């Protein structure tokens, strides 16, 4: 375990070093000074940047940029899901840089977060209980969590070959570690790697692209323990929509640790078209993912399997004249099937292994997501003077446990507005002030549990309160202010300080949640 951690760290620090070297190189060669607003503007003009095709970086004609930011985020309040902490704090650092290398382009980012979660409930062994896996153990004890997360991303695009083709690749490497701080305890390790090789070609004003995708993920629990070995802890192993079986951590029959192993493949196409001052972009893709959940690595027993397919499509248009207009429309459909197994233990003395007798899809989890947004940027040059945006987001979650039947359906519509203003403050300084408002309107919601134990605390204290939260209407008011100033004699580097706060309040009932962020950063 320690060896692996050292290996992760070596890899992480190698990437940081590479990025910092890139930043120095950028600072030495660029002509325009980067600031948080200019980097935001650069991305607003980009169409291929957020696609799955790294080759498209060349087609966005990105300039070199880089920044480094350290921040602290604290979140407090009882308007939350059970598994969220009553209080959460994140101490993080993120660095990001893009670099022209001749006619090629490379982009990378690294982030590290140290996360402390206080008083979360019904999560025994998941670093991220919201990542969509229904098979995991929970316990009713209030507990703190300590987590660390490393996230490395890179995109590389070749120079155009044969005056037509660009080859590229994207990669994301994510590792997380964490430990639950109250009995029953768990120590967890998570890793995922995602690779997307791609190719793009351009024909006059038309550009097309295609990329493939492969992802591998593993989450391991390194044993469940109790600090107080005198008291075994009851846990509930979830199977979806509140269905569960009971188990115990501690003693001779202690619940074995879970291992999650997933592979994903996919593909995406892109098309863009340049029409004088307007650029259009269309992309769509499909991914297929399978995640196995087993308990007891030495005598594997299948707890379940997830079979996921996702289809998505996005359309974006950017009109750049005196000002910048950006329109984004996206649709995503996720269809997840939860497979469960009937297994028996082959008791043959030399064998003793679990054997599958039957497998079937016992639950389905469907999500449809449609989002529309429009952003206006006053000024279309290096920076904007102010910006305003509107968005609407429709999301339908329709989950079903087939036998015995349970159903959960939540249909929400989010809409919001945001704005930022970029104010001069002396010769070398700027204030950026922003505000945003979001309203969530619940259109429909139902939860019917038809399982074996409706009186269980899993239903009464976990599933039902969480469902009530999911269907609540709320509004969010957010504000942010940052101050940016150039530094150094050449004034080619900058420094910024920022504060931001978000306030969430349900339209009915008590409770609220406040998130505050403080950050300091540098641009190069």
């Amino acid at each position, binding site marked *: 375990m320690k060896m692996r951690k050292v290996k992760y760290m070596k890899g992480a620090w190698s990437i940081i070093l590479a990025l910092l070297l890139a930043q120095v190189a950028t600072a030495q060669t660029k002509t325009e000074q980067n600031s948080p607003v200019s980097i935001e503007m650069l991305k607003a003009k980009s169409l291929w940047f957020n696609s799955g095709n790294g080759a498209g970086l060349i087609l966005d004609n990105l300039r070199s940029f880089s920044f480094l930011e350290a921040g602290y985020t604290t979140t407090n309040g009882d308007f939350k899901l059970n598994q969220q902490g009553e209080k959460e704090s994140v101490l993080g650092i993120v660095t990001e840089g893009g670099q022209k290398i001749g006619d090629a382009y490379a982009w990378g980012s690294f982030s590290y977060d140290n996360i402390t979660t206080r008083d979360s409930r019904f999560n025994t062994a998941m670093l991220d209980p919201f990542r969509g896996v229904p098979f995991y153990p929970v316990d009713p004890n209030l507990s703190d969590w300590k987590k660390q997360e490393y996230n490395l991303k890179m995109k590389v695009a070749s120079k155009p070959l044969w005056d037509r083709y660009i080859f590229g690749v994207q990669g994301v490497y994510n590792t997380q570690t964490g430990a639950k701080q109250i009995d029953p305890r768990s120590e967890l390790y998570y890793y995922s790697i995602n690779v997307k090789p791609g190719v793009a070609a351009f024909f006059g004003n038309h550009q097309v692209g295609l990329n493939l995708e492969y992802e591998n993920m593993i989450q391991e629990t390194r044993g469940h323990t109790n600090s107080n070995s005198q008291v075994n802890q009851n846990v509930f192993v979830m199977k979806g929509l509140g269905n569960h079986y009971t188990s115990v951590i501690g003693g001779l029959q202690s619940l074995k640790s879970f291992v999650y192993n997933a592979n994903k493949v996919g593909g995406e196409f892109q098309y863009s078209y340049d029409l004088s001052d307007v650029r259009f972009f269309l992309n769509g893709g499909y991914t297929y993912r399978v995640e196995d959940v087993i308990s007891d690595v030495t005598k594997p027993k299948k707890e379940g399997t997830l079979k996921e397919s996702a289809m998505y499509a996005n359309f974006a248009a950017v009109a750049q004249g005196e000002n910048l207009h950006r329109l984004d429309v996206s649709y995503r459909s996720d269809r997840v099937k939860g497979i469960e197994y009937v297994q028996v233990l082959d*008791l043959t003395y030399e064998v003793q292994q679990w054997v599958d007798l039957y497998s079937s899809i016992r639950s389905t989890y469907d999500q449809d997501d449609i989002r529309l947004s429009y952003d206006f940027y006053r000024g279309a040059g290096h920076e904007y003077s102010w910006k305003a945006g509107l968005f609407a987001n429709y999301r339908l979650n329709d989950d079903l446990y087939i036998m015995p039947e349970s159903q959960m359906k939540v249909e929400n519509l989010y809409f919001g507005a945001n704005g930022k203003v970029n104010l001069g403050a002396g010769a070398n300084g700027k204030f950026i002030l922003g505000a945003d408002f979001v309203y969530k309107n619940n259109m429909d919601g139902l939860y019917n549990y038809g399982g074996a134990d409706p009186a269980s605390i899993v239903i009464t204290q976990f599933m039902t309160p969480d469902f009530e939260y999911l269907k609540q209407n709320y509004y969010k008011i957010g504000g942010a202010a940052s101050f940016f100033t150039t530094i150094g004699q050449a004034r080619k580097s900058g420094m910024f300080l920022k504060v931001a706060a978000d306030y969430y309040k349900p339209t009915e009932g008590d409770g609220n949640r406040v998130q505050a962020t403080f950050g300091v950063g540098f641009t190069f």
Partner: protein
Amino acid sequence: MKKRINIIYAMVLVMFAAVSCEQFENVSDIGQVESLSAKISVTLNLGSAPEPDMLNVKLINYEERYELETSMSPDGTITVSDVLPGIYTITVTSEKNSGGFTYNYSGNVVNEAIVTDNKQINVNVGASKSGALVFKEVYYCGSRTPSGGSYFRDQFYEIYNNSEVVQNARGLSIALLNPMTATANLPVWEGEDADQYVYALQIWQVPDDMDYMLNPGESIIIAQMADDHNKSNLNPNSPVNLITAEFETFVRTTSLIQDNPAINMTMGFWPRPTPQWLTTVFGGAFVLFFPPEPIDPNSPTEVVSPVGSSTQSFRIPIESVVDALENVGNPNQIQLKRMPAVLDAGAMTVGGTYLAKSVARKVKETLQDGRVILYDTNNSTNDFEVMDPPVIRRYGAKAPSWNTWK
């Protein structure tokens, strides 16, 4: 150059396919769950008992906590629908009063996989007169001391005369079966007739020195340590005072253990005894039996070990067992049964350790004189319930007259 890039892309594709292929293939043709049907038939082995009028059929999927219940004619078959695919225990039971006796009819098939439609399952149903001596209450899980420590010396086993006739407990034996706790790794026993026995790790016996008569409605208490457990040097939090127990499994005195008024039982079989007869607080499987032959702890034929293990066990013929009770650590372990279904088709649990709770047989009926008749269908899941706190001689059970220290 172009050719080289194409080769690299092709290799990447092949690598992706190879890595993901097996995992994807495993789930490619898995369809949605569908309910199944099962056809249940019975074979009656009733001996001289009369044929029952109707049979109750119960299918229990312990893992899913899913139950189906119906009834059928003894000479027919029945199709049970809405069966969730899984592992089932099928119990067929009935009861009939005839000629002044109450007959119990029971048959079981355990760990039966119902994963195909219209599966045919035959259950052998036997008949017996209601058991005379039965486990009435068993307190195995122990209790907590005021400082939160674990206390296990207050375990007891209450045995009740559930019949209409006087019973003699002389020579009655209680055994803890192998394996000690519920486990998926069941021991494998050698011999063609291995399934005709249960295998004891430890046996204690009521002394064969005199008759120990039990009238209907009387019970005897077998205590691990027949002391007042509320004493300050023991556990003031203990739910029981066992000073009136008829028997104790006394091994030797220690600073905590003394020889109490209770009659000392005879240690029949226990290869490696400890100062006290502590049975597992996770829930052991127990049988009451009258040994057909005197227990010889060194018998070359009756003392056996499971395949691959040197743990010695004493084999007990199933036909000599008068009652049985299987306990497990938590409800999910009920499917990890180690007791033959013919003795106990179910299992019980208090759900944890050191909870100061017991399992006790439910009352079937209360007679005019106040005496209770307890359920005895050879299925502890149905017959027992969890009690908090444990109480000796609940429901007005009386101590036998020869207990002069009660």
